């Protein structure tokens, strides 16, 4: 496994460009949308938790 899998992404200290995501909201049982712009406007910290695929462990 010597091949590099991923292109280099954002580094710590950098500003994160705005992003928007479609979501499923378990608390509402409904779809939604979330954007960094809104989170910043709400003065919220954001934790992004990436995982390879649904139906696997985290």
């Amino acid at each position: 496994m010597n091949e590099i899998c991923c292109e280099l992404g954002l580094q710590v200290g950098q500003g994160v460009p705005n992003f928007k995501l479609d979501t499923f909201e378990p608390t509402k049982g409904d779809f939604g949308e979330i954007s960094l712009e809104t989170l910043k406007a709400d003065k919220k910290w954001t934790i992004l938790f990436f995982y390879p695929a649904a139906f696997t462990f985290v």
Partner: protein
Amino acid sequence: MGAEVITVSTDTKFVQLAWQREEKMLKDVKYPMGADPTGELSRMFGVYDEKTGLALRGTFIISPEGKLLNSEVNFYNMGRNIDELMRKFKANLHLATHTEEGCPSKWKEEGDKTLIPSPQMVGKVYEAYEGK
């Protein structure tokens, strides 16, 4: 816990709905599940594997100002420790209002000892930390 936690995978929101409804381990999950089927966000954070179309296990903490403060990426086969994520998040909260301080590795929560870097501390971190 004072932060918006968003789980993200390259699945669609429909798959995430199905998974959350099917998997009993997820019955108490309250976090929004973000769909990144194009891999755009996964690429932005450097966790997109072009060969598989999947995102590696990356965890990122972003301040309310939109600055990336923590970055941790595990390969496919290793899960993450939520205690360490919480420790990092709490340390960020502390450091946001105590900008002159530093949270050492043993810092766990508000009230724990922090360090204030100074010329006197150079070579004397042990004494500063242990109070000797």
